[in-house]
């Protein structure tokens, strides 16, 4: 089921060619075909991962869409499990009972059955024995039926948002043509290649053959576009079944996409939920509703990640290229696309950080056959190479980070608090830095404690505000947190404390490693040091809080810790006194001690002063000191109280009927 038709075909042809030296046929492949064959590049390695990636791509598209019109995103994701007979009826196939049982892979031979039954009986026996001995028995997993290859599970994934929507006539091309998109250009975006939704469609075509359904409406549009289509993989063109306009009663805008694919909920359940949770962390201004629906009600999941703020990061701006980041091909493309006529204008307007005078100096440096006024069209390929060379060698100012849209310290902090409820949290937002001509910003948050956080380091990685879940081990953030941060110097116990580490990197180009866009390599020193610095800054903030907390704890436990040693100390002192008193009695003639001391020893001898007397006095003293210290602590800590966090209460969507209740300190506004 996993392997699609086409790869096996290619394999066959490959193996055949050397044998029968047939004349080789020159074939051409459409982009859709290429991605169908290499779907792992886009994260469709297996059914489980495909389900995950489908959810992910749809959610990210929804967020991008809502943010592009500055609308607070509301995204609803539903995964509906479809059992086999339901699926068959959907595609119009009649259920077939197995007639020849031996034909199937999961057929159990007589011998195998005997073996299995014997094994089960043995297991039961052991269990019974254990139970009789009163041992706690581990719940033995119900013997899973051997899942045959044909036993695929299917899911309908529905994603609904309140975004921009799509123009009615563009919908077929937006979904039915691989590598066509609106997100090309130098800009910080979640998606990049115009692959996501199309890959979901290709996968659905490969695994179920069912088309994708799209409903969309743009703002102030009186109708809803409804479109059902699939893709012609060989031609890379959409194949439209239905494309009609429907009534838009609720004046809804946004998009709703439905796709039926093969997947695996059991193994990727936690990944998908983690993804949703982390997405909620990094986008606290969005509201997510995640639902998993199946026939078995106990498996159903409904999670609402509610909005925590209405402050949205600004929409990332499209920026011009930095001269040190372009290659020869890109220069040619820019020349072809530009409206500028001559070289000077081209340099000045198509790149960042080149002023007019700077451009003139650069042209002078290029050589005698270059001039500021020369027409762009007249540049020879050799001259283009010269420009490229100079771009590589010359020094340019670093691009600034204005074109980037980081989540923002505020949002990151809110997100962490909202989803993890940590005891402590610190965040830091670095300034823009540069790697190979692309600006990047690193933001970090470190939290201690919280719910659903395991002991030790919990790492949350974000790139361009997308959570990264796979290939954590080699990632720059993981490596930095594990190897380069000395946690103990910040009074954090790396193994015992529940540490959450959140690092978000945004850039016009994230230097992903590997094909899956799942991790950032550890070999880029600029990024590695920025990550380290950001985490350290968080830790420094935390340290003072932790120290304060430890002081507070010490405060509470001081009296107990001091009192613990009273018997030891007084016992030692009393024993010496007693020995002295006794020796003094025996050698009473020699009176070695002064009046006070003699009196004291006499009292000890006569049991007027006992160990208990000493203990009582010392305990009183401890109490006194404890009281003084507590008072001192209270006066000190009273001054430096932590700043309060603003709370956010979601406004209800009602008419603006309000009553303001005024008090000297606040105004209470009631909606009704």
């Amino acid at each position, binding site marked *: 089921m996993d392997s699609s038709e086409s790869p096996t075909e290619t394999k066959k042809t490959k193996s055949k060619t050397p044998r029968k030296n047939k004349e080789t046929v020159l074939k051409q492949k459409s982009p859709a075909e290429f991605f169908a064959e290499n779907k792992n590049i886009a994260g469709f390695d297996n059914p489980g991962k495909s389900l995950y990636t489908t959810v992910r791509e749809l959610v990210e598209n929804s967020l991008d869409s809502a943010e592009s019109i500055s609308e607070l995103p509301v995204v609803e994701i539903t995964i509906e499990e479809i059992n086999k007979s339901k699926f068959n009826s959907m595609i119009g196939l009649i259920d077939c009972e197995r007639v020849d049982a031996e034909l199937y892979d999961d057929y159990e031979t007589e011998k195998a059955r005997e073996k299995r039954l014997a094994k089960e009986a043995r297991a039961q026996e052991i269990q019974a024995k254990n139970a009789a001995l009163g041992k706690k028995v581990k719940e033995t997993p119900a013997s899973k039926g051997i899942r045959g290859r044909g036993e695929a599970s299917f899911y309908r994934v529905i994603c609904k948002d309140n975004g921009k929507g799509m123009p009615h006539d563009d919908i077929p091309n937006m979904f039915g043509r691989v590598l066509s998109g609106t997100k090309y250009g130098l800009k910080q975006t979640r998606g990049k290649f115009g692959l996501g939704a199309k890959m979901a469609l290709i996968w659905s075509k490969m695994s179920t053959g069912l088309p994708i359904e799209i409903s969309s409406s743009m703002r102030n549009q009186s109708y809803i576009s409804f479109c059902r289509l699939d893709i012609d993989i060989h031609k890379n063109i959409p194949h439209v079944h239905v494309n009609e306009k429907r009534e838009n009663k609720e004046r809804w805008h946004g998009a709703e996409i439905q796709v039926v694919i093969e997947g695996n909920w059991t193994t990727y359940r936690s990944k998908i939920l983690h993804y949703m949770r982390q997405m909620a962390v990094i986008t606290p201004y969005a509201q997510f509703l995640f639902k998993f629906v199946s026939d078995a009600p106990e498996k159903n999941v409904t999670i609402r990640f509610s909005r925590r703020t209405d402050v949205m990061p600004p929409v990332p701006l499209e920026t011009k290229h930095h001269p040190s980041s372009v290659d020869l091909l890109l220069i040619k493309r820019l020349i072809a696309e530009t409206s500028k006529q001559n070289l000077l204008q081209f340099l000045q307007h198509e790149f960042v950080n080149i002023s007019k005078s700077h451009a003139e100096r650069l042209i002078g440096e290029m050589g005698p056959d270059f001039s500021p006024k020369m027409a762009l069209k007249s540049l020879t390929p050799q001259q283009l190479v010269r420009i490229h060379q100079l771009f590589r060698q010359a020094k340019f100012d670093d691009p600034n980070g204005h074109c980037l849209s980081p989540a923002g310290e505020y949002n990151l902090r809110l997100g962490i608090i909202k989803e993890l409820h940590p005891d402590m949290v610190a965040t830091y937002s670095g300034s823009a830095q540069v790697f190979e001509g692309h600006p990047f910003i690193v933001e970090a948050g470190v939290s201690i404690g919280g719910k659903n956080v395991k002991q030790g380091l919990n790492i949350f990685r974000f790139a361009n505000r997308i959570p990264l879940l796979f290939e954590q081990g080699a990632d720059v953030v993981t490596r930095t947190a594990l190897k380069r941060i000395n946690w103990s110097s910040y009074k954090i116990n790396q193994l015992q404390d529940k540490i959450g580490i959140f690092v978000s990197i945004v850039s016009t180009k994230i230097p992903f490693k590997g094909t899956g866009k799942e991790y950032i390599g550890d070999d880029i020193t600029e990024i590695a040091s920025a990550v380290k610095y950001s985490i350290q800054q968080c830790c420094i903030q935390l340290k003072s809080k932790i120290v304060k907390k430890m002081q507070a704890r010490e405060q509470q436990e001081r009296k107990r*810790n001091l009192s613990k*040693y009273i018997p030891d100390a007084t016992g*030692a002192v009393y024993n010496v006194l007693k020995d002295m008193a006794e020796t003094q009695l025996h050698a009473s003639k020699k009176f070695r001690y002064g009046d006070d001391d003699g009196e004291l020893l006499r009292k000890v001898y006569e049991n007027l002063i006992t160990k208990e007397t000493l203990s009582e006095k010392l305990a009183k003293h401890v109490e006194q000191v404890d009281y003084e210290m507590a008072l001192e602590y209270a006066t000190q800590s009273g001054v430096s109280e932590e700043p309060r966090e603003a709370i956010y209460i979601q406004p209800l969507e009602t008419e603006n009927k309000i009553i303001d209740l005024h008090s000297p300190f606040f105004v209470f506004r009631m909606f009704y």
Partner: protein
Amino acid sequence: MAESSKKRRRTNTDDLPFKNKLKPDSTILQTLKDFSTSSSSSSSSSKTLTLQDLSLPFSCREVSDLSLSSVQSNIESLVLRIAHSILSGNGFAFDVPSRAATNQFYVPELDRIVLKDKSSLRPFANISTVRKSAITARILQLVHQLCIKGIHVTKRDLFYTDVKLFQDQIQSDTVLDDVSCMLGCTRSSLNVVAAEKGVVVGRLIFSDNGDMIDCTKMGMGGKAIPPNIDRVGDMQSDALFILLVEKDAAYMRLAEDRFYNRFPCIIVTAKGQPDVATRLFLKKMKMELNLPVLALVDSDPYGLKILSVYGCGSKNMSYDSANLTTPDIKWLGVRPSDLDKYKIPEQCRLPMTEQDIKTGKDMLEEDFVKKNPGWVEELTLMVKTKQKAEIQALSTFGFQYLSEVYLPLKLQQKDWL
């Protein structure tokens, strides 16, 4: 005795490197005798300085041997003071001399580390000192008992009297040093001793608790150095020098080969870092017998460190440095320059670790190294070549190379610093 060693030599006619350079033993003996008399006359002529002779810009804390009864009365008056303080409702505190590195000072005139007089208060009603002050009170009580009964116990014994409070021996040991410092007496005056560690063999006769001991007749292992030095007396010797050995293995080789019979000497080892008893014993030998002390240590920073502990004392025990240090110890070997001089093959040399190099560099800054230009040179060479070698590296030319060739040749050439 000289004859027997000659016989031994004749039987071993190996062609050991540099053996041909050796002159007859009688010549070497003569050089040694000259050296011994000259060094004893020079040291006897110069009176040993004490702290009081110097007018230092700060006051120092030194302890002295106290009798049991005075230790007892010191403890008693301290305890009485504490009892009064508790009864008057003020809790109590110990005034403990600080033994931190900042409170140590190397005095070049004395060639040893001394303790300055800074001290810190150890109040009971403070979370950071409550434990230590409770332990201090307990140790005081235990020592008081020892004084009354007049017996000796080991540090281990002391620890086991209240394991629950002390938790581990390091804590009771540290406080014990604090207590002796606080009472102004040596640790041995507290009647607490460490287990025997050092051994001595060779031309030495002394009395241990009244029994006469002849260290030439103690078998191969030698005589264990008694933990309490006050038992030791009546030292007699016809040795020409004292040989201080870092390692047990080298000591065993020399003892078995009866090196002290060929060249009359006393061989001492503390098997690594020296304990108090060995240091006291060496000091006593040096003072009573007036012999030069030659040291045989590894060619690494720790060998020199051990030498320094014998020579000018450890920081931990600096309050008693007057009794524990033996001045004027000569560095005989194995020195970094010997590695090439004696053509020790590469496979017997070890590369120094980062930590070794750091220790070496740190030691170059220490006063006790700086005062001896020869040592500075050797240590600089070690840090530069980044190579170290143990005494055992000499075994590459045969197990007896150390006693047959290396040491005699070193002595013949008076090759010490």
